């Protein structure tokens, strides 16, 4: 308890001393709506509510943060809400990959350029999982089995349709020439359970969605879709840590994919508004609670802001366009 207060105080000091925040003159005059373009209980929802809890616990803000779920139309409801609130500094939104996939797949009229980028909080990893009752120890063994079984015979379970999980599945298919039957479910927890129950043959769950079943010995990770291994070396199961999972690239499956967990604001807000929130998130990310959340979910803790962030998002958008075009996921294509 004491150390966390000390940390918060030092974080607050650091924030005050840093030149970027000295220009900060604005602060919220009423409660801030934190829009979540996804359902309750999912990864984005957990992260937004964790932020709310951290802000409240450490008193980082005079006003409160109120998370609101606007999940309709694969998140389009939330994005349109923020897009239409031009100039409103009391509204922020957490995004996942549906920032790119939803407008592309459904044709709903919005683009990340309609919003103001604030801060990247973290990037979420994807891991290729199989049931531990199977004999596959490497991605190659598994993909050979998929090929041998014939097109569409083995099933890949994932969250949602034409979103990140299906995009990765399509990328694997394009790279290796195998063909899965992709089965969309509504939530990551359900996907992991379907794999344990043997209703699907593999998944690309985020670490946090599958970790409990991994620890219980029901699932086996084959590789992680990042360019480097996850840095967490503490043992998660009896003999493995997140770090022990090889990258897919190193096993010959040359695909990397990370999902954005970032914050945006409405269009037309002033620079001091953006500065306020980057300052706030710097304080949030310095808390021990935040670090624990990152470790539990084996997140990639890249946290860009400003132009670097916008550039990253632009690159990622281009990548989604090409991935989704190749997979035939674009509306009206």
């Amino acid at each position, binding site marked *: *308890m004491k150390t966390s207060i000390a940390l918060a105080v030092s974080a607050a000091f650091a924030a005050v001393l840093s030149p970027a925040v000295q220009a900060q003159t604005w602060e919220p005059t009423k409660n801030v709506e934190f829009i979540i373009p996804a359902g*309750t*209980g999912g990864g984005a*929802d*957990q992260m937004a*509510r*964790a932020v*709310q*809890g*951290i802000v*409240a*616990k450490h008193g980082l803000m005079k006003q409160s943060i109120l*998370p609101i779920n*606007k*999940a*309709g*139309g*694969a998140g*389009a*409801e939330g994005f*349109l809400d923020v897009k239409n609130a031009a100039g409103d500094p009391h509204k922020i939104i957490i995004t996942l990959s549906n920032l790119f996939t939803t407008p592309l*797949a*459904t*044709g*709903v009229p919005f683009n990340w350029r309609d919003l103001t980028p604030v801060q990247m909080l973290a990037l979420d990893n994807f891991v290729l999982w199989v049931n531990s009752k199977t004999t596959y120890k490497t991605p190659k063994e598994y993909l050979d089995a998929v090929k041998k079984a014939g097109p*569409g015979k083995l*099933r890949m379970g994932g969250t*949602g*349709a*034409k*979103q990140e999980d*299906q995009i990765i599945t399509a990328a694997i298919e394009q790279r290796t020439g195998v063909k899965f*039957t*992709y*089965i*969309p*479910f*509504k*939530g990551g*927890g*359900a996907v*992991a*359970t*379907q794999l*344990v*129950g043997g*209703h699907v043959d593999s998944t690309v769950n985020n670490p*946090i*969605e599958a*970790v*409990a*079943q991994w*620890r*219980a010995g029901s699932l086996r990770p084959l590789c992680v879709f990042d360019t480097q291994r996850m840095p967490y070396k503490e043992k998660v199961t009896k003999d493995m840590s997140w770090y022990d999972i090889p990258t897919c690239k190193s096993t010959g499956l040359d695909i990397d994919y990370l999902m954005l967990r970032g914050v945006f604001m409405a269009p037309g807000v002033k620079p001091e508004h953006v500065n306020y929130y980057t300052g706030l998130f710097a304080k949030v990310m310095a808390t021990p*609670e935040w670090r*624990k*959340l990152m470790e*539990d979910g084996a997140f990639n803790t890249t946290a860009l802001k400003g132009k670097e962030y916008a550039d990253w998002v632009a690159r990622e958008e281009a990548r989604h366009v090409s991935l989704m075009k190749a997979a035939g*996921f674009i*509306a009206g294509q």
Partner: protein
Amino acid sequence: MDEIQSLWHGFGVALSPTNIALMFTGVILGVIIGVLPGLGGANGVAILLPLTFGMAQTPGGATSAIILLSCIYWGALFGGAITSILFNIPGEPWSVATTFDGYPMAQQGQAGRALTAAFTSSFVGAFLAVVMITFLSPVVAGFALAFGPPEYFAVYLLTFCAFIGTSKEPPFKTLAAMMLGFALAAVGTDTVTGTLRLTFGSTHLLTGFDFLVAVIGLFGIGEILLTLEEGLEFRGTKAKLNMRVVLETWRELPRYWLTSVRSTLVGCFMGIVPGGATPASFMSYGVARRFSPDGAKFGTGKIEGVVAPETAAHAAGTSALLPMLTLGVPGSPTAAVLLGGLMIWGLQPGPLLFVEQKDFVWGLIASMYLGNIAGLIVVLTCVPLFAAILRVPFSIIAPIIIVICAIGSFTVKNAMFDIWMMVVFGILGYLFKKLQYPLAPLVLAIVLGDNAESAFRQAMLMSQGDLSILFANTLVGTMTTLALVLLFWPMISALLAKLRGKPG
């Protein structure tokens, strides 16, 4: 008897003065949340979740936090029945089936009796479900793993088939209402292809029709329009206003033990699967109507028609926590928020939770016993108070109801559009009643249509279009067969009677 010992230990954890105070706070908040339509249990828990974040950092704090939140959940389960019975407005999706007999009872001046029956059966359902969790959790926890898309579809099919024959209206009117419900449920994002459908380019329709808005309109506003037409008064004014009604009802309830047992079984099954409390209540009502000797009179104010859905809803709501804790799969929207809470508090739901977090798990299970007792005490003492609401003149209460309905519809998505939708649904509800179309199949299809459709299409993806997947193993085969038997029961029973008649 390891469980008894662990449970005893759990009571030790749960029975601190702070935790008991939290329990009552949670239940009272939950009842209020349950009463207000629109502000569902999931919202209530979500709003309070961050408050528990600091709480969970202290030793034993995670247990206190989940006690508070789960008690809100129990309270909401209890509270949902109140407005269903008094005003024909279900506060929560799972109390829709309670309106079928609960509201007619209130109109006949038996609001107290209906409320007591609802609360008591809720308690019985929850209690039996907790007992099941206490002693059978290792056995049943893995049961949900057997459920893939075909099995889920079979569960939904079973719900529809159990319910379909239960309205008094002609079968084709039932069918028409149900198909309209399916059509409404299809609006929005198609979960299997990820594309939008039936939105006609409107951004308001992206999210589809929210069930709560539809129910508030169809039942609440529709009912008020009808009452306006029939003369501005409530017919429930004769309701008894003392505690004696509770005791009298209790004397009567043991007669329906068979219904309670059946409904508990349906509820526990639906909770563990997890199918959810709403289908459980519909299925249980349908089954009770079919197998009760008084079945034909259901819908006119039979107490059994209140006992069945309430028992099942509470049993399902309680046992839904089991797949949440052991598999990380939430059985209801509220359970989903609780699940998020667990993770924020640093607890990892999953097969190892029962091993690694004994204090927490058994504290929670003990709090389920205590929380439900607390809930029962709170709501039963308020029965006369709730019944007294019906004495307020209609000209005062009706505008209040309309305002609450409007706020409820607005709260669902913070959208003005939903208030207009509520009005449209209100007019639809009025027309349905005037033309004697049943509302229940419409509502059932709106609630379950989307899930049933996803499960069916996932199953068809798995089998590449082969329907035989619905009979692929014993589990799914049994459920599908059972559903078909229930669907054709009137014909089957007629046939059986004929066969039996012939030799004689």
